[in-house]
């Protein structure tokens, strides 16, 4: 007798079975192919690191969300990675400190967090991404946005939508244009985050209200933002956004939400969020930032394709598979594999090709559809 509860998986974790794994593998391969083709070299950081080293690289990594434990060897705190971007930052600052810039790196791997939320219960995610280290210029940002869109296209996402934002907007405006005390900056940012018009007024950020409404389709929203910026402190940012939008126009639906801060805790002047049709929530995000410790400028993006996999896994096409009966010609099987077929060899007379998921059967040297 088996006890079904004995093999229960912890909350927020799941086994991916063949069909969804096929979708994950296809997406991962497609995205890494695009990144490699654009000159991004893949790196493979470890799953576990000293917590301190991960924490110092970026403000956005909250150590309380990390799986932590004490290293029996060094007696220091170890953590499982929750974001590979910080690891790539560390590599750029250490192992590849002397490599010439701009440095183009990409990565793919599993990341975990210690607790899920009701909205996002998943505790393990696949993260795929690319970092352009040594530059946070408009040209770098445009390259990264274009690369992110190309990656999603290759992954099979449709109806791609990119939402631009200016993560340091409030800090920039609070200096002079719409002055705020440091405590108010925190509150105003929070209410802008939730797009809470009522809350924003209560937090003393009434001057920031127009920002809430300067969002929408890129061309309209950028005009509204330019209208708000009477002093011109945002002029270079607005011009940068226009250039980036121009470079990717026609490839995706573009929107602008200048005050968006969700998930942009460590980004500097530019950030973007990626969406696709039929995929719940965000598919990925990116932007400009500086690597903690060295303050080197960088631009990058990360995709979290799990929800895309959920959306496409039922339709993931099964590859043609040919059944090789007992006593078949091994050379014929090898030839078919070389041509891209999958083969399933019989172990006994009782093997049934259809039940083993085969679409074809080898007869002589040619596959015949079942």
């Amino acid at each position, binding site marked *: 007798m088996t006890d079904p509860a004995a093999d229960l998986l912890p909350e927020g974790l799941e086994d991916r079975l063949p069909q969804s794994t096929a979708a994950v593998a296809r997406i991962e391969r497609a995205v890494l192919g695009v990144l490699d083709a654009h000159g991004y070299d893949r790196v493979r950081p470890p799953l576990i690191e000293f917590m301190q080293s991960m924490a110092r690289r970026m403000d956005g990594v909250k150590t309380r969300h990390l799986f932590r434990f004490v290293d029996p060897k060094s007696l220091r705190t170890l953590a499982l990675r929750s974001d590979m971007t910080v690891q790539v930052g560390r590599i750029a600052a250490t192992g590849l400190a002397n490599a010439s810039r701009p440095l183009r790196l990409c990565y793919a791997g599993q990341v975990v967090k210690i607790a899920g939320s*009701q*909205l996002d219960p998943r505790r393990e995610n696949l993260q795929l991404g690319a970092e352009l280290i040594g530059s946070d210029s408009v040209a770098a940002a445009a390259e990264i946005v274009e690369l992110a869109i190309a990656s999603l296209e290759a992954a099979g996402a449709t*109806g791609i*939508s990119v*939402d631009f934002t200016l993560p340091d907007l409030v800090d920039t405006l609070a200096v002079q244009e719409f002055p705020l005390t440091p405590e108010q900056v925190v509150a105003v940012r929070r209410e802008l985050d*939730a*797009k*809470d*018009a*009522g*809350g924003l*007024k*209560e937090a003393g950020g009434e001057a920031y209200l127009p920002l*809430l*409404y300067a*969002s*929408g*389709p890129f061309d309209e929203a950028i005009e509204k933002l330019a209208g708000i910026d009477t002093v011109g402190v945002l002029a270079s940012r607005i011009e940068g956004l226009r250039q980036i939008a121009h470079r990717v126009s026609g490839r995706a*639906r573009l*929107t602008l*939400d200048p005050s968006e801060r*969700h998930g942009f805790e460590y980004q500097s002047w530019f950030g973007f*969020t990626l*969406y696709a*049709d039929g995929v*719940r*929530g*965000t598919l990925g995000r990116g932007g400009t930032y500086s690597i903690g410790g060295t303050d080197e400028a960088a631009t990058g993006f990360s995709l979290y394709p799990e929800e895309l996999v959920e959306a496409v896994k039922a339709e993931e096409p099964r590859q043609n598979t040919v059944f090789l009966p007992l006593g078949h010609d091994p050379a014929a099987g090898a030839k078919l594999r070389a041509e891209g077929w999958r083969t399933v060899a019989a172990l006994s007379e009782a093997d049934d090709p259809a039940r083993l998921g085969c679409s074809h059967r080898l007869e002589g040297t040619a596959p015949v559809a079942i």
Partner: protein
Amino acid sequence: MTTALTFAVPKGRILDEALPVMARAGVVPESAFNDKGNRALSFATEDGAMRIIRVRAFDVATFVAFGAAHAGIVGSDVIEEFNYSELYAPVDLDIGHCRLSVAEPKDASVYSPGNASHLRVATKYPNLTSRWFERQGIQAECVKLNGAMELAPSLGLSLRIVDLVSSGRTLADNGLVETDVIMPVSARLIVNRAALKTDARVAQLVERFRALSESEAA
């Protein structure tokens, strides 16, 4: 993008005030919506462009946060309680005003050597309550109740309660006094973040409600 927009409205208190506002923004439910005998939970709008679902206030926030509904109307108390990252509240509808307050018995014992570091509080809003007490340096042990909070102090369930207060009558009738206001509450238009970014109709809906609230403020 041919699916109808789904709009979630809360049962009860806010709904009566919300319906005229919705009507002015062009969201008018079909007549079956007002038929008390009708047990359906989902209704079309008169123009057929939207679907209106009627659920509990707390569930309005959840439906919208998950993207199961595109937009909805709910009190800011509920928004704060969940603090969902996927929820935007772009328009303050200026209806359903009340406040969320801490209350305790009128004749609470005055014995208070120093400040408490731990308190038991009965409330419908455990997250909001523990966050507020945390900021005062107090670890609040919240007892989640779904109604009749006012009974808790007199029966010894907890000394304090956190609940919505509008006139203060219910508190007074149960021998309680309001000690602190945690937040003023009003009804907000809420939308799902991804829906706002990817579906132009959601942005248009926000724009209609916003124009309405601005013309009323003027």
